[in-house]
């Protein structure tokens, strides 16, 4: 419990810090006061309409990705399973781009997140089908590479075909993710899907714990494995779809966070999932603060920072799991 409390305090502290950082240099106390102000002055607008949604989205997206990552790793019993690496995020991005550029996002209620969810669903199902229920590292990663490449290429194609001259430049956003200049509308778009996905995955917690003993043992204990699989697939797709629809594909959060927390939370998936949600919120807030502090005027993408942290760790994990590869 002490771990969770510590992580929770970290999330809160970073949230407050994140609210006081921005290109408009305003003393921290003034900006926090303006947040609870009803004056509609410029500072209140900045705090309530620009910085608050950004902070909330960082928490939502980070927690969702950490949670989904830990659940996938628990289900596949493979520390390399991560929504970004195995192509789920890029499929969700493809869904989102198709919704935006076909007009679905503008004309259908919840068209954007639903389409991203559909994309993520296709991605998860493909990966699970290709990698098999045990998710051997090699097939998992190969399937992930293929799906990421295909979804990325189709995303680029859709953006290049757009009549809008700026659309083609947005390939970077959809592949790297960013939280810049999002509004409360985006928070309300993503949050319900992340929460719904988390609820669905939470129902699998005991099943995942049992699965650590092996599939046969889990079935003997009365867990329906195909139901478990369905819940994991739908829950992950909902979380990743909701996050990607508004923030682009942010990689490595679901990989790094469970890996760091495993020594502290233990290998029990049900506990690791919740602490990974808190850890994910911390990691993404740190990354979002970093992009604002390091290059404030350049709209540095979130995925750049998470990849700088995540890719070396990923290589390390591959090195460690090399033994089981043929």
């Amino acid at each position, binding site marked *: 419990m002490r771990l969770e409390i510590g992580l929770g305090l970290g999330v809160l502290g970073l949230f407050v810090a994140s609210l006081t950082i*921005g*290109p*408009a240099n*305003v003393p921290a106390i003034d900006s926090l006061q303006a947040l609870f102000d009803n004056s509609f002055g*410029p*500072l209140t*607008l*900045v705090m309530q*309409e*620009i*910085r608050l949604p950004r902070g909330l989205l960082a928490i939502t997206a980070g927690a969702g990705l950490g949670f989904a990552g830990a659940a996938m790793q628990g289900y596949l019993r493979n520390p390399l399973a991560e929504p970004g690496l195995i192509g789920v995020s890029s499929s969700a991005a493809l869904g989102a781009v198709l919704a*935006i*550029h076909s007009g679905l*996002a*503008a004309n259908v209620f919840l068209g954007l997140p639903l389409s991203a969810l559909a994309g993520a669903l296709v991605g998860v199902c493909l990966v699970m089908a290709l990698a098999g229920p045990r998710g051997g590292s090699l097939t998992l990663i190969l399937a992930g590479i293929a799906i990421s490449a295909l979804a990325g290429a189709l995303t680029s194609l859709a953006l290049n075909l*757009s*009549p*809008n*001259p*700026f*659309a083609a*430049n*947005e390939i970077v*956003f959809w592949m790297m993710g960013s939280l810049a*200049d999002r*509004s*409360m*509308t985006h928070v309300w778009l993503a949050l319900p899907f992340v929460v719904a996905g988390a609820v669905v995955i939470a129902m699998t917690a005991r099943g995942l714990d049992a699965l650590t003993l092996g599939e046969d043992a889990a079935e003997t204990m009365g867990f329906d494995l195909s139901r478990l699989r369905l819940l994991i697939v739908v829950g992950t797709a909902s979380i990743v779809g909701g996050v990607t629809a508004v923030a682009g594909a942010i990689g490595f959060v679901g990989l790094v966070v469970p890996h760091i927390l495993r020594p502290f939370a233990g290998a029990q998936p049900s506990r690791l999932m919740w602490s990974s949600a808190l850890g994910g919120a911390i990691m993404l807030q740190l990354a979002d603060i970093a992009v604002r502090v390091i290059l*404030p*005027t*350049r*709209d540095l993408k979130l995925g750049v920072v998470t990849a700088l942290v995540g890719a070396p760790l990923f290589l390390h994990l591959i090195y460690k799991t090399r033994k089981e590869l043929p």
Partner: protein
Amino acid sequence: MLAVLLLGGAAQAQEAADPLSVPPSSEFPAHPQRVVSMNLCTDQLAMMLAAPGQLLSVSYLALDSRSSAMVEEARAYEINHGRAEEIYLLEPDLVIAGAYTTRATVDMLRRLDVPVAVIQPARALDDVVARILKMGTLLGHEDSAEAMAAQFIGDLSALTEANEEGPRAALYSANGWTSGDKSLAGQILRAAGLRNVATEKGFSQGGILPLEVLVMAAPDMVINSGDYPGHSRAEDVLRHPVLDVYRAPGMRSDMRDRDWVCGTPYVLRAIKRLRNDRDQFQRTAE
């Protein structure tokens, strides 16, 4: 906005000497008879100044009503896409190009001994006069160019109303790009009697003005670039809820790219429209 796209990427290319580029072949013909223009801005100046039959072809952008002010006129010419092959086959005795776009094509044409004149984009209202005169010299119509330039100078000074007390306005286009006083758009803004918020914030030419900084500066008017079809995240920032207040009439104005992008006499139209919007703001404020 198109100007930003065109200028942005190639800004560094300007300085770097290209080892492959061949120096322009000695002289341009005094009275060229087969002229091809391959840049939106030179297209328009050439169409205004060329004698009938002298100009063969203009670029495809001249037909795009968002960026070109002379779509009707452009229909009379052959259309090129700035590719060396199609331009060479037109057998031009003079090719007129912009400084940034299609550099590879320009180098290729020069290697093929086609005379290529490069015209820099206008960065200020004064540049418009220089560009008109340059085009006149290239086409061998100095007299009509001088007349057009004189007309422009007269119209501009009649229209200009520098006003140090005028409303504060911000030019704000896709990706949060703003323009300061040392840009054509910034000078159009000042000529219309507005004060530029970008200049207050230290932008002399242009740059990215974070949304937060724009809101904190609380300008009187926000001047957006026109909407392009389709959707882009770059333009999302213009529709952010925090800018809702600037959707009220009198608080906003549009940059119509076709009048703002190029240093041609059409900038006068942009100034006129902006002055009307400014007057509306001042009426609303009273």
